[in-house]
């Protein structure tokens, strides 16, 4: 069985720094991390490989060559092959142009299954998996929580899907795109000490537009159907701090505060 995982590297929003004076995010210092939903997808793929060692797992990502180091860490976890799609022409691609680029690569491959995340933390449109499915002419399902591994190995995708709090069960024909949501069900295997500095560069293949042969007007800003008209940063202002005592009054005040802010 061949599984291709689509993986996106996003800024690590939990550790992003904020310039309080200029009221802007300090993007240049932001670390990259694997999109959590995509990580679950890859963890599920590696679980399949653990059960059926002859499974081939390939990861595909789009982005600047700077992601290579993070990409290598994924390859050190028993991933067979990594495809990095990177070309200056692709900069500024919206979800449609991105789907077209990824679709162009995937059309050249014969995967039994494509795993990916449902949402990405930075964009959060969920457009890409469905659009790729459209391009490839195969089925796709979002918000997958678990899939039956044994059935998958027999060529059948039985999926448990989160539908706004309800769990629904679906069967999907393969090949198809299974889009996971972040869950603890599938956990990425650890990199072992011996593998930490292992050279995996021979597993990486970089694809540019020379390989994919898309027209300039199909990709990047010109190939995009949507455009970002404006971005803005939420204004942050310093609030006066309030100190309360560890007594009934203090506890009540904290409780009411958390309730008011929607945490309780």
């Amino acid at each position, binding site marked *: 069985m061949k599984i291709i995982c689509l993986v996106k590297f996003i800024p690590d929003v939990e550790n992003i720094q904020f310039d309080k004076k200029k009221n802007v995010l300090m993007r240049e210092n932001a670390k990259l991390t694997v999109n959590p939903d995509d990580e679950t997808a890859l963890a599920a793929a590696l679980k399949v490989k653990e059960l059926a060692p002859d499974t081939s797992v390939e990861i595909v990502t789009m982005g600047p060559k700077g992601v290579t180091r*993070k990409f290598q*860490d994924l390859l050190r976890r028993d991933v067979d092959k990594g495809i990095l799609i990177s070309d200056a022409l692709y900069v500024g691609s919206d979800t449609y142009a991105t789907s077209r680029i990824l679709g162009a690569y995937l059309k050249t491959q014969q995967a039994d299954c494509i795993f990916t995340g449902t949402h990405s933390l930075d964009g959060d449109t969920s457009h890409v998996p469905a659009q790729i499915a459209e391009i490839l002419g195969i089925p796709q399902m979002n918000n997958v929580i678990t899939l039956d591994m044994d059935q998958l190995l027999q060529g059948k995708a039985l999926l448990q899907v989160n539908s706004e709090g309800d769990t629904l069960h679906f069967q999907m024909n393969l090949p198809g795109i299974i889009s996971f949501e972040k869950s603890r069900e599938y956990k990425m295997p*650890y*990199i*072992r*000490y011996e593998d930490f*500095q292992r050279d995996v560069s021979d597993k990486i293949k970089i694809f540019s537009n020379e390989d994919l042969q898309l027209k300039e007007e199909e990709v990047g800003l010109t190939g995009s159907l949507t455009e970002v008209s404006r971005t803005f940063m939420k204004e942050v202002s310093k609030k006066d*701090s309030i*100190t309360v005592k560890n007594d009934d009054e203090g506890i009540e005040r904290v409780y009411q505060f958390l309730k008011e802010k929607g945490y309780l």
Partner: protein
Amino acid sequence: MKTKDLLRELENMLTKDQINTDEEDLYDASADRYKKYAKVRRVLDVPKPQAIVYPNTAEEVSKLLKFCNENKINVIPRSGKTATEGGLENWKEETIVIDAKNLNKTIKIDEYNMQATVQAGVVLGELEEELRKRGYTTGHSPQSKPVAKMGGLVATRSIGQLSTLYGGIEDMVVGLECVFPDGHISRIKNVSRRAGGPDIRHIVIGNEGALCYITEVTVKLFKYFPENNEFHGFLVKDMDTGIKVLREVMVNGYRPSVARCYSEEDAKQHFYHFYKDHCVVIFMAEGNKEIAEATGKGIEMAAEKFKEGIVEKVDSGLLEEWFENLNWSQQDIDDEYEGMLENDSHTGFTTEVSGDWETIIKIYHNVMKRIKEEYHRVEDLTLLGGHSSHSYINGTNMYFVYNYEIHCAPEDEMRVYHHPMQRIIVEETLKLGGSMCHHHGIGKFRNEWTKEEHGSAYYMLEKLKESFDPNNIMNFGTIYPQEEGEKYQK
């Protein structure tokens, strides 16, 4: 000796309820906080001890040690369980842990002579609570105070948060009782001072259970004046300025109980609500009113001298609040363990070193530079910083702190993350003549540098081991490097 035979022998010396062979307790006793993550994830690579025993008297300790010495059974002395450097980790198949749980009596609180005598298993926090009711304090206040026990504190040469005024535990111990592997019980009497040959207390204080077992200690008492506490704090432009302010206070003869300087990164985790991306220097002045006030003035004068580097003063109320919540309890430890089960990360790995005033800042900058340039997983670090927290007339310490996301298997964590950084810190410190271990002890994971730490004086340390523990049964691998233990280190 087979466990079955060992237990039969132990039952000849102790009652059944003094012998613990509970599997979970033995697993817990096989490592300390050094391998806390691997321990929580149930992947420890070290053997479990065969039994934990709880002697009731020094005589029972004597019998146990003599028996272990004759049968070459490794002994891990334990009193409290807050060791952080592997001092309580087990490296031998044939091992018993002698725990001071039953040596838990406060023998005498002598208010007139200002000293308190307690058995090794007395919890410092409980002693301190009793003393404070009477208007006294030991002056010893490590973060582990609510759970750490007196024997362990003395054995590891512990230091507390108020050390700049009261000193480390070595300045507090008046006398003690300890038992050697041949069964000999030594009592070092309680006197105010003497010139009766070398100060033999220092053979015991800091021996980390590698020479003898401490059963009783007598420590000094101090009058407790919390109402006079003053808090002073400053945001400073860099660590260099902060260290200069600390030095200025110390060399002018002031003794604040707390004198600390935090790097920006470390300040962020402690003082996120007021640090404003700057280094933070904090002080607490305490003692009787006149001394506390004079100390406070000395601190303000030092800050004034370096005003070019002072960004602003910190509201003392914020500092007071912070100090009140500094200690961790058993609940905090349990919560931390829960967190490590849930997440591939944990907080709080440190390496603490010391040096003179001139050297310490060089060590700090060299370490920061090397870790950022050389460490192969630097992108996994979520915090890299440091603080000075214990100052002396001639120098200070540096507490390097680092938190990280863990991307390796739990059993590999130390090798992938802690060890490479610890190595850089120790190498840079020793290179410039500092000490690689300011207050956590050598334990088992800095023993590869014990010889370098002591240089030609290692001869003395070696002779102590040969004389007191010729069969090498005391806490195998602690302080003294052992080839057999290397498999657990690397």
